[in-house]
């Protein structure tokens, strides 16, 4: 086990910022086999406890070591509906890899579980031998899925396997939720998501885009049309702003707006009608994945200065470690322990300056992170022409506001039974960001899977007492 952790190939920083090319190039078969050899096939594989959906990690890695790549993909699919996605976007360093024996017991670099997962899933897709899961004979029971993000897609796939007649309703004109409108092409190509959606279609799942449940039709309407079960995976919605002076000047937008214009509407492409203004000096406020995606997008749209302004320090930054590293390589400036307090505009109302204040770290707060405290008199101004505010989102209010009898928390998330994911309306289940607030792709998928199992039990009990 003297083998060193494999290094993922990457497109060179000065090349990749010129286009939307995926940064990570993937492992070769030899690299994957070598990395797989590092796995000790532990009798008590702690890595599995770090995975929210408990993928049988040593089992799939063993298959890779043996060169049985399609089998490895099959193992992944026993528990994860979108392994090509999770291999790319899971915060592995906080999940499976954090619990790997190497990391925990030997303080050595963990097995590259995420890279291997991506390898197996990509291999299967590129082989053209993607396995479409078997579906049970149709049982004629109609179920509705609200939202086509990872939670909704996973739920739909599992219910189709059980033989249900599944329709996914999506408010936007494209399927995929954040995977399409949020996470950029250079991190997660749309074509990968589309393959998974095609698979669901092959399994008989129906999709209705431009359909807002609660608006275009109510839950009551859908019940009248024969739907007997509902899964709400409506995700996060309203972007938060900081409510500081000048925040509504032109050129200050939420990361949702910025990323939606670029990813969903392809605004940077001159052949499309949706406009985007991305300036030369772009400041992104925040330190999460969304902030990192926005700032790296700004660089790709031609910014000279693309800056992260974050009120805590590098250590507290919630973004995936790999994204921070990639951003640094791409020349993103990190202004940590810094917080905006006011914006100024030119005579046309377009933002021209942001006033920031230095912060220092005080006592830990409720989240366990040290609370940033403003330093009096430390203000200074930075010239900007575009500001992207990425300080979080609130749960999507569309479903709760159209269903007054649905129990929600004071933060606007839907209350569910922790195990069954059933809401206060018995035939409605829910999962993903609408239940957890902001979470991750894999947690949303895990919820979709658990909710499908519970709804299946619930409907079978109800219909065959």
């Amino acid at each position, binding site marked *: 086990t003297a083998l060193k952790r494999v290094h993922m190939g990457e497109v060179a920083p000065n090349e990749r910022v010129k286009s939307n090319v995926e940064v990570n190039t993937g492992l070769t078969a030899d690299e994957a086999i070598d990395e797989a050899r590092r796995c000790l096939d532990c009798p008590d594989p702690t890595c599995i406890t770090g995975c929210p959906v408990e993928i049988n990690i040593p089992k799939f890695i063993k298959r890779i070591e043996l060169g049985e790549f399609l089998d490895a993909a099959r193992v992944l699919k026993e528990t994860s509906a979108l392994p090509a996605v999770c291999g790319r976007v899971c915060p592995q360093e906080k999940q499976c890899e954090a619990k790997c024996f190497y990391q925990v017991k030997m303080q050595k670099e963990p097995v590259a579980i995420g890279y291997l997962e991506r390898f197996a899933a990509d291999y299967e897709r590129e082989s053209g031998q993607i396995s479409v899961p078997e579906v049970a004979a149709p049982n004629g029971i109609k179920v509705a899925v609200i939202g086509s993000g990872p939670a909704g897609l996973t739920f739909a796939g599992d219910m189709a396997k059980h033989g249900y007649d599944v329709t996914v309703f999506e*408010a*936007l*004109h494209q399927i995929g939720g954040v995977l399409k409108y949020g996470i950029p092409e250079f991190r997660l190509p749309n074509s990968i998501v589309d393959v998974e959606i095609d698979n669901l279609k092959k399994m008989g799942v129906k999709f209705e*885009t*431009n*359909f*807002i449940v609660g*608006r*275009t*039709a*109510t839950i009551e309407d859908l019940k009248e049309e024969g739907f007997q079960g509902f899964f709400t995976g409506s995700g996060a*919605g*309203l*972007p938060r*702003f900081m*409510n500081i002076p000048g*925040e*509504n*000047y*032109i*050129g200050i*937008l*939420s990361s*949702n*707006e910025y990323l*939606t*214009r670029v990813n969903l*509407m*392809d605004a940077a*492409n001159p*052949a*499309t*009608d*949706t*406009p985007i*203004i991305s300036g030369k000096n772009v400041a992104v406020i925040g330190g999460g994945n969304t902030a990192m995606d926005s700032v790296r997008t700004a660089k790709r749209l031609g910014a000279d200065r693309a800056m992260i302004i974050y009120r805590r320090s590098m250590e507290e930054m919630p973004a995936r470690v790999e994204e921070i590293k990639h951003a640094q390589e791409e020349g993103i400036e990190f202004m940590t322990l810094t917080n905006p307090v006011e914006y100024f505009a030119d005579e*046309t*109302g*377009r933002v021209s300056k942001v006033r920031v204040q230095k912060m220092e770290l005080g006592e830990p707060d409720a989240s366990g992170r040290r609370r940033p405290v403003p330093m009096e008199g430390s203000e200074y101004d930075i010239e900007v022409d575009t500001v992207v505010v990425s300080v979080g989102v609130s749960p*999507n*209010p*569309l479903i709760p506001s159209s269903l007054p009898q649905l129990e929600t928390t004071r933060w606007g998330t839907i209350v569910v039974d922790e195990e069954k994911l059933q809401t206060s309306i018995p035939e409605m289940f829910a999962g993903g960001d609408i239940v957890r607030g902001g979470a991750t792709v894999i947690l949303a998928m895990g919820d979709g899977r658990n909710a499908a199992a519970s709804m299946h039990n619930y409907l079978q009990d109800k219909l065959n007492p």
Partner: protein
Amino acid sequence: MNKIVEKEHFSENVVRLEIEAPRIAKARRAGHFVIVKVGETGERIPLTIAAANPERGTITLVIQKVGVSSRRITDLNVGDELTDLVGPLGEATHIEKVGTVLACGGGVGVAPLLPIVEALKKAGNRVVTILAARTKDLVILEEQIAEYSDEVIIMTDDGSYGKKGLITDGMKEVMEREKVDEAVVIGPAIMMKFAALTTKEYNVPTVASLNTIMVDGTGMCGACRITVGGKTKFVCVDGPEFDAHQVDFDEMLLRLNGYKEIEKGAEQQYLKSKDK
């Protein structure tokens, strides 16, 4: 899906489309709007549902050509389909019997005003409607508005039809002569700003329907945000109607111009490509 079943030109730049959308026709209320996208590379733009026919399963949009996206839609013909159509969006108008309502529509703002006038009348209000336009050819929907109004006053900037003057002149005249319990103003932002200042002088509670820039229309992006009573609101989910006396119209006017330069270029390019 979303097939155009009727098309009518109100004037050179204002077009009425009747579109198949059975679910939206059934679900919509006065004040609701839709988001429309034409072509795979099209932009998502908001348009008010001017009328709906649930039996026929259609909705009516009245569209003024101002830029590339509004032109793309108005260039479609009967039998064509809109690529994407989603709705109904926004909060429906709060309709109540209050007494006398002064309804003011400027330009294409008359289209969103129509369903509101209809609902107000049906709720038992006395409705006085003022339609304002730059010139005679731009006055739209007069007949339909008259059907649900106790009185219709027409104002044109050049005096070519109705009375000569601005919409605010007509509004003052009515408020001088009788007690008005509520006003509704819909039109270009600049008109709404001055209309709101006018009703404020007379202490008449006023609702304005705002037409900000939007992307998703579902509360996800914040492009449509404005300041109302010192607080940031999202027009697509909190509105589009707000207390006109609380709206920061100056900020709204600035924000509407956020993409002006790019939009102009795109429009010229589109017109050129059509000439070819």
